[in-house]
């Protein structure tokens, strides 16, 4: 699985697409009218569709493909107050070589850390192809002044982060100040330089599916490279339904603008079975163009060991156990 897929004619297409939505972001009122004009989401129907795709039975060769793909899509994450250089280096080693007993295992997509650990991660991952992702913008609450958030981003980028995971200002979003949220994303994007920007909505706090659809379009219009469900720090994180909804958004956005945006569900995905269900959602909603770690990620930590145990089961025919994967 290539870790970087070719970027699809982004600039030209985006100019064109950007132009067609230029009116939508011209003022707070225009942006509100645009976002509130998006088709509504029927919660019962959305959840039923997600549940129905969850009944797909993925076996044998398809399962092997899905497990390796899922491993390659993980942003292996540690976001603890207690993070130390040692912990981050251990995680980086795991990302590069997930299964010490089987070197054929793919590497994870990235290691995801706080900005102050980005330099440590970058050093440990140098030359491996595994990206350094750093949360920023006063993660997870996002409650800081804009210049503080931008400094946070600059720090992370300077320390070698390839990807920035920002949080939106949910307070502004919920009080209807969409343009503020939009402009903040633009400002962060400008600080990212060559780093790809993931925009976290904290879907559990946005609460309604209509809000999640609006936030998705808001983020995509503002230049997000990825739209991401959540921080993993609140009660409700990634669910099949909110991820399905965001996959519909990136699908529709590409159809209308030609620009492809990635999706990252994060938090609460712990088992291979769950991960495979998300890949089915990707496959049958956005389509196979998104079945690549350039366009889809899992924000997770314990998921990796479960995938590795399932992978060992497929290759050896036996269930191993938690003592046969590394604890980091």
């Amino acid at each position: 699985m290539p870790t970087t897929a070719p970027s699809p004619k982004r600039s030209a297409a985006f100019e064109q697409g950007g132009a067609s939505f230029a009116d939508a972001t011209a003022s707070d009122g225009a942006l509100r009218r645009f976002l509130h004009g998006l088709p509504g989401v029927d919660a019962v129907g959305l959840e039923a569709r997600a549940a129905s795709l969850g009944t797909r039975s993925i076996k044998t060769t398809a399962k092997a493909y899905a497990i390796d793909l899922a491993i390659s899509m993980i942003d292996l994450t540690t976001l603890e107050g207690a993070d130390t250089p040692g912990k981050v280096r251990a995680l980086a080693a795991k990302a590069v070589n997930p299964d010490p007993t089987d070197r054929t295992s793919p590497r994870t997509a990235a290691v995801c850390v706080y900005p102050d650990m980005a330099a440590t991660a970058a050093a440990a991952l140098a030359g491996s192809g595994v990206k350094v992702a750093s949360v920023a913008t006063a993660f997870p609450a996002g409650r800081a002044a804009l210049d503080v958030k931008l400094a946070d981003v600059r720090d992370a980028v300077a320390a070698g982060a390839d990807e920035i995971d920002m949080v939106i200002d949910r307070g502004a979003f919920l009080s209807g100040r969409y343009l503020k949220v939009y402009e903040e994303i633009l400002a962060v994007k400008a600080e990212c330089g060559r780093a790809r920007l993931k925009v976290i909505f904290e879907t559990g706090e946005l609460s309604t599916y209509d809000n999640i659809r609006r936030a998705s379009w808001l983020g995509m219009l503002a230049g997000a490279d990825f739209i991401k469900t959540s921080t993993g720090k609140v009660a409700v994180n990634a669910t099949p339904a909110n991820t399905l909804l965001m996959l519909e958004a990136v699908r529709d956005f590409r159809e209308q603008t030609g620009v492809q945006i990635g999706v990252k569900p994060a938090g609460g995905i712990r088992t291979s079975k769950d991960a495979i269900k998300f890949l089915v959602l990707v496959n049958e909603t956005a389509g196979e163009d998104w079945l690549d770690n350039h366009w889809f990620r899992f924000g997770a930590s314990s998921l990796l060991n479960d995938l590795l145990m399932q992978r060992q089961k497929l290759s050896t025919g036996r269930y191993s156990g938690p003592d046969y994967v590394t604890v980091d």
Partner: protein
Amino acid sequence: MASAFDYAPAPESRSVVDIAPSYGLFIDGEFTEAADGKVFKTVSPSSEEVLSEVARAGAEDVDRAVKAARRAFEKWSALPGSERAKYLFRIARIIQERSRELAVLETLDNGKPIRETRDADLPLVAAHFFYYAGWADKLDHAGYGANPRPLGVAGQIIPWNFPLLMLAWKIAPALATGNTVVLKPAETTPLSALFFADICRQAGLPRGVVNILTGYGDAGSALVEHPDVNKVAFTGSTAVGKAIARQIAGTDKKATLELGGKGANIVFDDAPVDQAVEGIVTGIFFNQGQVCCAGSRLLVQESVQDELLHSLKRRLSTLRLGDPLDKNTDIGAINSEEQLSRITALVESGEAEGAERWSAPCELPSAGYWFAPTLFTNVTQAHTVARDEIFGPVLSVLSFRTPDEAVAKANNTQYGLSAGIWTEKGSRILAVAGKLRAGVVWANTFNKFDPTSPFGGYKESGFGREGGRHGLEAYLDV
């Protein structure tokens, strides 16, 4: 759609069901041959493999079965409701315990995907028996006065599209209210009813309370005609329904008829588009469209027609057609060669009349009876495909401009069984639902069933209601 993520075959095991090479009629608690020894074969529509040979009932067998039911009636109807409930609860639990076996059996005999028999048919079958078990000792409170009495012997004729579910819709309320039954399943899907006979024995149901006669239309006709039948319940085509109505005219037999439909699925411009697309797909492709309440006419507001059709076509290209036993199959086989030729003929008439036919690229298996999910656009009220029930995976797309026009077009049909409304506006749902002449109106969903909800038709879709408290009335002398 070829994808890097190619789902490997995931077939449900056939070994969970043991189909005998031959079956008899179930009369008075025993399996018995037909009086004249006639038999017929039942095949699996997805492969044309012969599954079993079953007895073909004639008039003499009908008479035997009705007499057995009459003998059983006196004691069965005299049981306290709480005792009848025990049997029904027991049957419901056995159905749950044997649900995997029954799901595989139904998929083999009917051709519908295991995903549907497992996730829709069987749970609903068990739920129906549980629901009516609960009524058996509460009939005094059903709104028909104290101690409402059963009718007697019910002759029940069911279709092939939901064999076991239609059996449950018929048998559960009949037994709960104290009637005894003689039931004839459709000739293409006799097996699940015969397995149900075995479940009756397993539950210790008294002899003669349930009798199952496999056979053709002649057996059904003899059952309707039998002088000692007090109640006729039929689900099937409007043509046969009319014939039954003629047959029982002038008798004191009560009847409920659940017949054809040409349901309108109305999508307004403010609908939740992605969910509406799912609802359209469920409305017409659930059970290959072989559903009397299918949403076979899509009425879409002209201002969003192109956008909706684009999404719908994209969604149809992801439907997985093939082996019904594969857990990832969305579209299974058409139930019989006869039904397939009926669908084919109607679709040809649609093309001949100038409607535009569209199907996603889709490879059909070489054996068995298959029809690709199909859309017709450029359809008007005058087209045959907009008027006649196709009973297959064929959707006719019509447009409208205003809510009044939508209602007028939706009601402009000889049928009146189901309709759907898609809009985010609650007031519009209420306003439109009140004007639709259809027995079931779904709002922002389609083909959703529940035993607590009455089901039945207006106009040529039949009369009487099945399900819910209303469903009791059809089996009570009130």
